[in-house]
C-alpha cells in the first residue's frame, strides 16, 4: 500500500522557527518531525511514499532524496499554493490508485499508530483519538461503529473524539475533494464529511503515540516523547570527570569537557564542544556543531544546529532555532507565562523563550519566560526582552 504524506505547509503558528524550513523539518530529538513519520511507515513495511511538498520543498527533498537512506521510495509532488490539506492530497491524485494511507507530515506518530490503522482493514477509515482539548481539531460523532458527522473546531462540546489526520482512503475521496474545492473548502476533514454521503468511514482507535505540534511549546513535548524511544549512540570525546546518567546520545567528534554533567534523555549532535562544567538536564536536544561554554545550565530545551551559548547562562524550557548565538550570562528561564501567538494569548504552564534562527544576544541579556524572539534579531548587552520581537529587530 502506498502512503501520501502531506508536507507542503509552513506551520505559521510555529513562526519564527519556520523562517527557512517547513514545520515538518523542525528537528525533534535531532531528527526532522517528518523523519519520525517516514520511520513509522517503514517499520510497518509501507515503503512507497508520495510526499506532497511546497513551502521550502528543497529542505525536504535534500534531506530525504529518493528515500533510500530511510528504507523507503519517495516520490514528490509539488503543491504550488498551500490552500489546504485536501487540495494537497488532490495534487497526489495521479500517483495513487486503489487504497492508500494519508498522513500529516507534521505530527509525531509511532509504529503502533500506523499499524493500528493498517491492521484494522477498514478503508475508508480514520484514525481517531480522545482529546482533552477537542475544540482545536475536527471532532467526530460515532454511531453504530461508523463516523456520523465531522465538526471542524466546534465551539460547543460535541464529543471528545477527534480526527488525527491519519486516514486509509480510496480514490472515492478525490470526488469529494472536488466537490468541496468547488465550494471553496480546502480542508480534508470537510472532504471526509462530504464523502460520508457516499460511503461510511470507520473510526479506528489506537493506543499508539500521536502528538500534534501546533504551537512552539508543543515541540518540547514532542521532543521529550521522541527521546524516550531513541537509540543511544555514544561517539565523540568525553574528558575525565564527565558524568553521564540515563540515556545520553552523543554524536561523532563532539567534545564533552571536564566536569560536565548530563542527565538523559539528552541527545547531542556531531561536532559540538560542551564544557567544562556545563549541566544539561532532561529532556534536551542539541543539534550539530553547537558550542556551550563553562558553567551554563540547559534544561528541557531544544538547541538546533550551530547554536552557541556563552558561559554562565541559564536556558530552560526554550526552543532556539539554527545558529542562535549568545555571549555570556544569558538568562532565559522558564515559568508559567502568557504567550502571544498571532492575535491570541495562551496561558502555558511552563515555558521559556522561543528564539528564531541566527538571532544574536550580547552579554547579560535577560529573556522573559513566554517571549517569542524573531529570526535574525540582534539584542545588545544588558538588554531585557519582555515582549515578542519581530524578525530582524535590533534591541539596543
Amino acid at each position: 500500500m502506498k502512503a501520501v504524506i502531506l508536507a507542503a505547509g509552513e506551520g505559521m503558528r510555529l513562526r519564527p522557527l519556520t523562517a527557512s524550513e517547513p514545520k515538518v523539518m523542525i528537528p525533534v530529538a535531532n531528527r526532522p518531525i517528518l523523519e519520525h513519520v517516514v520511520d513509522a511507515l517503514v517499520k510497518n513495511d509501507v515503503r512507497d511514499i508520495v510526499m506532497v511538498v511546497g513551502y521550502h520543498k528543497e529542505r525536504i527533498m535534500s534531506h530525504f532524496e529518493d528515500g533510500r537512506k530511510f528504507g523507503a521510495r519517495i516520490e514528490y509532488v509539488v503543491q504550488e499554493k498551500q490552500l489546504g490539506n485536501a487540495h494537497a492530497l488532490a495534487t497526489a491524485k495521479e500517483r495513487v490508485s486503489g487504497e492508500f494511507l494519508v498522513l500529516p507530515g507534521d505530527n509525531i506518530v509511532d509504529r503502533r499508530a500506523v499499524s493500528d490503522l493498517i491492521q484494522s482493514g477498514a478503508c475508508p477509515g480514520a484514525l481517531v483519538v480522545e482529546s482533552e482539548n477537542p475544540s482545536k481539531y475536527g471532532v467526530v460523532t460515532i454511531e453504530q461503529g461508523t463516523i456520523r458527522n465531522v465538526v471542524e473546531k466546534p465551539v460547543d462540546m460535541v464529543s471528545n473524539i477527534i480526527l488525527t489526520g491519519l486516514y486509509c482512503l480510496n480514490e472515492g475521496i478525490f470526488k469529494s475533494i472536488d466537490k468541496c474545492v468547488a465550494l471553496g473548502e480546502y480542508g480534508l476533514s470537510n472532504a471526509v464529511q462530504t464523502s460520508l454521503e457516499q460511503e461510511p468511514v470507520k473510526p479506528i482507535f489506537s493506543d499508539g503515540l500521536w502528538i500534534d505540534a501546533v504551537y512552539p511549546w508543543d515541540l518540547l513535548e514532542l521532543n521529550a516523547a521522541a527521546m524516550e524511544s531513541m537509540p543511544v549512540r555514544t561517539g565523540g570525546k568525553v574528558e575525565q570527570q564527565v558524568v553521564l546518567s540515563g540515556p545520553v546520545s552523543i554524536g561523532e567528534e563532539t567534545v564533552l569537557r571536564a566536569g560536565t554533567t548530563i542527565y538523559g534523555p539528552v541527545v547531542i549532535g556531531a561536532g559540538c564542544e560542551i564544557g567544562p562544567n556545563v549541566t544539561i538536564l532532561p529532556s534536551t536536544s542539541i543539534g550539530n556543531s553547537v558550542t556551550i561554554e563553562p558553567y551554563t545550565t540547559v534544561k528541557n530545551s531544544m538547541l538546533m544546529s550551530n547554536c552557541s551559548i556563552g558561559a554562565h547562562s541559564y536556558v530552560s524550557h526554550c526552543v532556539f532555532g539554527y545558529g542562535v548565538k549568545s555571549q555570556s550570562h544569558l538568562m532565559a528561564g522558564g515559568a508559567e507565562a502568557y504567550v502571544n501567538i498571532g492575535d491570541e494569548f495562551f496561558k502555558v504552564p511552563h515555558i521559556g523563550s522561543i528564539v528564531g534562527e541566527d538571532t544574536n544576544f550580547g552579554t547579560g541579556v535577560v529573556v522573559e519566560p513566554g517571549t517569542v524572539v524573531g529570526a535574525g534579531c540582534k539584542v545588545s548587552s544588558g538588554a531585557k526582552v519582555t515582549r515578542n520581537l519581530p524578525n530582524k529587530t535590533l534591541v539596543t
Partner: protein
Amino acid sequence: MCGIVGYAGGRDAQPILIDCLRRLEYRGYDSSGIAVVGDGLHVHKSKGEISALEETMPTMHGHVGIAHTRWATQGKPTTENAHPFADCSSKLAVVHNGIISNFMDLKDALVAEGHVFSSETDTEVFAHLVESELKGDLMEAVRAALKRIEGTYAFAVVSADGAEVVAARDESPLVIGIGDGENFLASDVTALLKYTDRMVYMMDGEVVRLTKDSVTILDREGKKVERQPQKISWNLEDAEKGGYPHFMLKEIFEQPNAIHESLLGRVETLDPEPFFQTGAFTSVKIVACGTSYHAGLAGKYIIEELAKVPTTVQISSEYRYSSVSRENPLIVLVTQSGETLDTIAAAREARKRGHKTVAIANVMGSAITREVDHVIYTRAGPEIGVAATKTFTTQIVAMYLLAMDLATQSRVMGAQARRSMVGQLRNLPRAVQDVLNKADVVEALAKKYSGVKDMYFIGRNINYPMALEGALKTKEISYIHGEGFPAGELKHGPLALISKESPVVAIAIKDHTYEKMLGNISEVTARGSPVIAIGYEGDTELGKYADEVLTVREVPPIFSPVPVIVTLQLWSYYLARERGCPVDKPRNIAKTVTVE
C-alpha cells in the same frame, strides 16, 4: 558507501553485472571487482572507475556472479583492497558494504587457525569465516559466520561449487529483483530497473539464497520469510537525483552539510590538533588545475592574510616545467579526484625538488595521496555533476583550516584569534543555507539574462578568484562566453569588450575594496552594460549603482567567497537550465582529467 550487485540466472552473468554496477557508480567509484561462477570461480578486480574494470577484465563464462564498486573510507583504493575477496582455497568470493567492528579479534583467531590473509580489509575476514563454517550448505555457513560478527553489513557470497548467490543485510541496503528464470541482487533498485520492476526488500538480519528460479529468505532465527514482490514504477534518472532536475542542483544544495562534514573534528577551540608539523618553510606554493586552481587562488589570499606567509599559485602543468628557484616552499596540491595527472606529476616534481608536499583531495586514498607527505581530505562525498560545486567550497574550507594551522604553528595566530575564527567557520553552513533559501531570486534573475552571448565577472581581492570561478562555471555549463577579471584590470583592456549586450556580474562585498568596486561598477554602467551586483544584505548603497542586486548574509570578508560562490553556482545553473543545456554532462568535458 559501496555498491553491490548479484545475479543468478540463465544468461551470461558478466555483462549484466557490469551494467548493473554502472548504475551504482554514484555510490563510489575508486575501485571495483567481479566474481563469476562457471567452470570454477573467476575473480577480477581493478582500481579506478568501473570503466577501468571493463577494460582490463577477461571474458568470464558463467551464469552466476557478484560484483562490487567501492568508495574507500578506510584502506587505500588499490586493486588488492578491491572486492570481491576470496578465502584460502579460492573457492568462495565475498563482497561487502558496511563495517565489521570486531574484525581484528576475528582475524587474530582465524590466523591462529591457519588462515592466510591477502589484504588489510575487514571484508576478507568474512570470507575466511564462511570458509571455516562451511560444511556443505553455503547459506548455513553464512548464517553461522554472521553470528560471529559485529557491525553493519550487506554481504553477497558465491561459491565455486554452487549455482547460487547467498546474501545478508543488517543496516546496509540490499534489494532482490525477481525476473523470469533469473534473479538479481543490488544495493539499490536503480541498478536493476532495466531488468525487472519486481522487487523484494530485505529486512535487517535476513539472509537470502538466490538461484535461477528460487528466492529463499530466512530471518535472524532461521524462520522462512514469505514476502510478495513489489512493483516499482519510477524513472531511473529521477531516483538517483532524489527529485532534483540535475545532480548539480542537488550537490549545490548539499553544501551546508558538506561544509559541516569537512569541519567535523577539526575545529576544536581549546586544544587543536595540527594536521601535521609544518617544519621550516618560507613560502607556500599552491599547485592545481581548473576549478581547484581557483580554490588555490582563494587560498593565496587566505594563507597570506591569516598566516602572513607569501603564497603563489601555479597551474599544475606549468609548475612541472618551471625552473627551480632558490625558494623552499611548502607545496600544496589541490585536486578533487586525486587522479588529475598533471597535478600528480607536479607532486612528483615537487618531491624531486625536495619540498614538503600537502594534498587537498576529496577521494580517499586516491593516487595523489601516495605521492605527498600529508593529505587534508575535504570530505565532500561523491560528486556526480561534472561542474564542481560542493567539492570547490570544501576545498576553500580546507584552505581556512590549513591557513589556521600554519598560523597557529608559526604563532602568528594566538589562541583567542583562533577561537574567534573557529566560531566564524562554524557559522559558514548557515551563511550557505541562507543563499540556498533565496535561490528563487537568483533563478528569476538568471531567466532574465539567459539570452546573452557574453558575460563578464569582476571582483577584487579574495573575491577576484570567485569572479574567475563564476565565469568558469558559466562557460562550462551554460555555454555562455564568460570571463573573469580583477576589477582593477577593466580599464587595462577588457572595457573595450563591454557593451549593452554583455552583462557584468560584480562582486561588491563591504571590505577595504568596496569603494573601488563601486567605482568599477560605475565605469561599466556608464557604457550602458547591465550590472548584476552581489553584495551584503542590508547594503542600501549598492542598488544605486547596479541594475540588479543579489545579497548574501554579512560574514567577515575573508569568509565571503563561500556564500558568494554558492550564489554564482546557482546563477550559472539557472542560466544553463534556462538555455536547455545538459547541465550534468557538458560537451567535451570529463569530470576527472587523467590525461596530460
